[in-house]
């Protein structure tokens, strides 16, 4: 086949190119620009090289925030993925229960993030919130505004409440696409409930679970609004995750250079983890 050579066709790409440039490339390049320079306002810039990157990478503050972020993401993945699969497994497959469950499950996903934060803030307040008051009433010394452990507990509970549904819905879709013959064959082969889950349901859910883990990783690693409204990163810096710390640095202290360097490092961590995870999951796929 002969390829037609028509350089004018490049013009068709121009609108997309301009769009992408203005909404992604140029803002990103601005950040890159800031990350190598010092600014004192009035558009005065001074070249700093890799100083900000070194400073961020070596700073204890960044290490702490990153540590908190990793711990948070790890904990919520550890809770939400098994819990989501578990709920999906117990959901009805037919009848009136299906729409009821699906609607109930979708509800938390439809609530705006800052509303979720405000809701849980009030819900968990030790003096007037239902959760906080009840916990204190039955003898727990619960106060998420002052005790770091309680703040973590509330933040994680909120995220589990808000996002487990996503894992449930994805798992449920994956489970529903399994042909009944697989279950029948497993029954005939004498497989236990666990073996049926391990050798049929889990492998068949692999693709949707990969997606669920990726989405939950990205969202939780970049979480900002909900903890900002709930705890504001406190008490102290106890729940100051990467994004909260970043905003503090950029807008609170107006340290644009270090904040830009931190943004880029943050961005590359997310990108790297997603890429590694996805390639690992898909490597087996190609083999088979």
């Amino acid at each position: 086949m002969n390829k037609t050579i028509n350089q004018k066709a490049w013009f068709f790409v121009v609108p997309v190119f301009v769009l992408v440039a203005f909404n992604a490339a140029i803002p990103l390049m601005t950040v890159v620009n800031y990350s190598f320079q010092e600014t004192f306002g009035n558009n005065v810039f001074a070249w700093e090289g890799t100083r900000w990157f070194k400073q961020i990478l070596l700073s204890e503050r960044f290490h702490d925030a990153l540590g908190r972020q990793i711990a948070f993401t790890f904990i919520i993945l550890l809770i939400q993925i098994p819990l989501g699969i578990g709920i999906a497994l117990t959901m009805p497959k037919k009848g009136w229960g299906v729409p009821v469950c699906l609607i109930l499950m979708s509800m938390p996903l439809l609530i705006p993030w800052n509303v979720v934060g405000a809701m849980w803030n009030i819900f968990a307040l030790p003096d007037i919130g239902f959760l906080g008051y009840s916990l204190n009433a039955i003898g727990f010394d619960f106060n998420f505004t002052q005790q770091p452990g309680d703040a973590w507990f509330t933040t994680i509970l909120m995220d589990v409440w808000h996002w487990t549904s996503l894992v449930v819905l994805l798992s449920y879709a994956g489970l529903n696409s399994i042909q009944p013959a697989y279950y029948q064959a497993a029954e005939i082969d004498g497989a236990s409930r666990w073996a049926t889950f391990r050798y049929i349901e889990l492998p068949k859910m692999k693709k949707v679970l990969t997606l669920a883990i990726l989405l939950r990783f990205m969202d939780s690693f970049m979480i900002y609004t909900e903890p900002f409204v709930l705890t504001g990163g406190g008490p102290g810096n106890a729940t100051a995750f990467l994004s909260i710390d970043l905003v503090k640095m950029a807008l609170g202290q107006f340290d644009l250079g270090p904040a830009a360097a931190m943004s880029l490092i943050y961005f590359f961590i997310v990108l790297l983890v997603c890429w590694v995870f996805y390639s690992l999951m898909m490597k087996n796929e190609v083999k088979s």
Partner: protein
Amino acid sequence: MAKITLNNLSHSYVSNYTDADLVLRDVNIDWKDGGAYALLGPSGCGKTTLLNIISGLIKPSKGDILFDDKNVTSLNPVERDIAQIFQFPVIYDTMSVYENLAFPLKNRNLSDTEIDSKVREIAEMLELTSTLGNRASGLTADGKQKISLGRGLVRSDVNVIMFDEPLTVIDPHLKWILRSKLKELHQKINRTMIYVTHDQTEALTFADQVVVMHEGQIVQTGTPVELFEKPKHTFVGHFIGSPGMNILPCQIKNGQINFAGQEIQSNSNIKKNNFQKTQLGIRPEFINFSDKGIPVKIKRVSNTGRHKIIDTECSGGTIKILSNASKDIPSGSAYINFDQKYTYVYGDDWIIE
């Protein structure tokens, strides 16, 4: 191994069913131990439901299932010790071929040495030995279907092996190979096998006894020859054979059959005529051209290579005739005769003998 008896089996998928909801009505079957049987019928005739009832995946609304005179109606598939091969290959994707074959034995807590010898024996039989270490998901469709079959064969306690249209996803040229493999296996292991299909060639080549189903009922059980030569129901007549039986409306008066203004001799013994509709059944194979008889017009002759199929028309309707490809076919108008031995009368679709 077991003989299988089904007593007055009826089934409906709704719990408060009326007669119209029944997908199976009054099925009675007596199958010998070690036989090869086929359930044949079009889609939606209830054959898969019947198979799932025998395997225990579905509980029948009414009736009993007996394995060797033991009532198993309330037992689950594991307790019944059956094996089933499904329409598309069911394999455990994450396991190797070996692990797939070993899986049913592992679940039954056999020792590793026992499992190993059994798996290797069956793999040899199915020509899977060279792929034992491969991941099962990488095999072709026929290889995967062999694994499904193998998982049924490794168990020595299996009462009956059931096939639910197992060749649906297999390439045509491999169908023949796999089908003869099945037949060979049946002779070798001598277990009761039940084969569900809508393909008459598959049913007739595999089974000693074919059960033809139509709208939830068994319309005839018999050897392939019986089904061909003496269909008990008009459905069997046109479902089996290619082209199917000619079913022609006829009148019965004073014990005489009248078709297209002619008196026809048949193999049916008509004593009374209390039917709403009476029909004449004659297979295209058993119609000959003659000097006199029923006058027909030849409409079309198609040559299939081995046969000629002739579409003709007479005052009683259209009649298909099958004749040897080497024979000359008259053109325009002709006369035909029905072979009396293979001509039957059907009253309300059931044969009059």
